[in-house]
């Protein structure tokens, strides 16, 4: 197993714990924006989708493989961007409505 992979596991486990500790404190009233906002964050796979385009330029790939990668990468970018832009925008729309109306 490579050092980078082990390092990845360390990061994954620590990030999961940080996530649990922070998100446990999100009040139920914000659970829907939490979900749509978290959803937008899962759009981080956009980075993977963009990097996937570079696989097209790997040496010795058949034309078919190059075409397949270009289609898969394009769809991955589109899907991830829907997630990113849609997720953050809709969360912002919702949170804008959460106001404290001054009592009388």
């Amino acid at each position, binding site marked *: 197993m490579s050092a980078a992979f082990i390092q990845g596991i360390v*990061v994954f486990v620590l990030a999961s714990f940080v996530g649990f500790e922070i*998100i446990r404190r999100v009040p139920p009233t914000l659970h829907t924006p939490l979900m749509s906002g978290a959803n937008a964050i*899962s759009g981080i796979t956009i980075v993977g989708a963009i990097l996937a385009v570079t696989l097209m330029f790997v040496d010795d790939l058949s034309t078919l493989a190059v075409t397949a990668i270009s289609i898969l990468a394009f769809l991955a970018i589109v899907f991830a961007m829907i997630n990113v832009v849609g997720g953050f925008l809709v969360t912002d729309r919702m949170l804008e409505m959460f106001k404290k109306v001054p009592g009388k």
Partner: protein
Amino acid sequence: MIELSFTEVLIALAYLAAGVLFILGLKGLTSPRTARKGNRMAAVGMLVAIIVVIFDLIAHDLVSAATGWAIIVGGIIVGGAIGAFLALRVQMVDMPQLVAAFNGFGGGASALVASAVIVGSDALLPAETGVTTALSLVIGALTLTGSMIAYAKLQGLIGGRPVAIPGGPATNAVIAGLLVILAVFAVVTNSPAAYWGATALALLLGVTAVLPIGGADMPVVISLLNSFSGLAAAMAGFTIGNQALIIGGALVGAAGMILTLDMSVAMNRSIPNILFSGFGGTVASDEEIGTKPVKRATAEDAAIALSYAQNVIVVPGYGLAVAQAQHAVRELATALEERGVNVEFAIHPVAGRMPGHMNVLLAEADVSYDKLLDLDQSNPKFGHTDVVLVIGANDVINPVAHTDENSPIYGMPVLDVEDAATVIVVKRSLSPGFAGIDNPLFYQDGTMMFFSDAKKALEDTVKAVNEL
């Protein structure tokens, strides 16, 4: 030790910054006051990550043809436009299906990244990367189709009732078993065909696993798929060796898992029970229901009881969301507040169609967020509440959850509205809720039943209050 170039160090640190911004963004969501800022911080983190990856491609000259750039720029524009269109157009009441669809796109994107890696490397992956690629592929594919079915159910494209699949849960178990075998085989043998076979089974399992789940259980399903979309991204992060994906994916995986557990506790059911029993659509026979006497109320009765109360708590349920009555209930609250009545809202965790959905609907109607009480905040208050107004809720206020050990909802956390002096229940009829259980609260002395559509009942009551 391999020394990294300045550019590589910069790139690695920028990804770290993106991860930190995600964490700070989620931390902002722990209070309504800071939530909007938090969401924007997370969005900035995402922007940083996208700029960095493009910088990486340019700095290392990784895209050697114009077609590559066309795919990247074209994909960003097309996806961004679709996302913006969906986000700006959606009605708040339709939020659950939009989030379901977004979950699907996220999972699908991760599965597509894994697919490109398999094609590009001709499956010559080191074993550990093979495992994460397979996981990303399988979890992502399952999330994609499962979310599409959840979307179709919530949007009403297919009935919300559980759809029986041939063979029942056993079929799903067989598909899942074959899926695991094929995925292990793919990793061990580096066979692309086995990867594609496992993907096909995962796509199928997403459909067959979600179809039998009833509409009322959708909050759990969406939460779980949310978690999966994060896990799929984290696994893709291992495959391409990118820590921003691992951090972001782990955070989302944790968020979805917490919400899933919350929902299953609020429904008093285990996650396997929700996923495999098709319970969320059972309807009891109407036979023994509706024969016992109840006290009926009109809009005028409700108006008098509410207007002369000191403390009123409104319990909105699924029926309020369906009737789109959030604005009407806000008008009633305003009318009562003008008469000096203190009005608050008690919201059960499964009141809407997804966690927190009711809060969003009430916020949309300009109800102040400090008036929205959760389960733990509201239960101690019912004892000194004069009137509780229940709108379109049933199981979440059913006292048998405390008293009847044989009841399917025994032990489920409920709102103890029976502690209040008077309870007014707005409901279409005496029919039971989705659990199909009669509610003894309806026959109690302090309870008045107001049979009507939620929206009409509220509008009539506002009118009656204003005429007093």
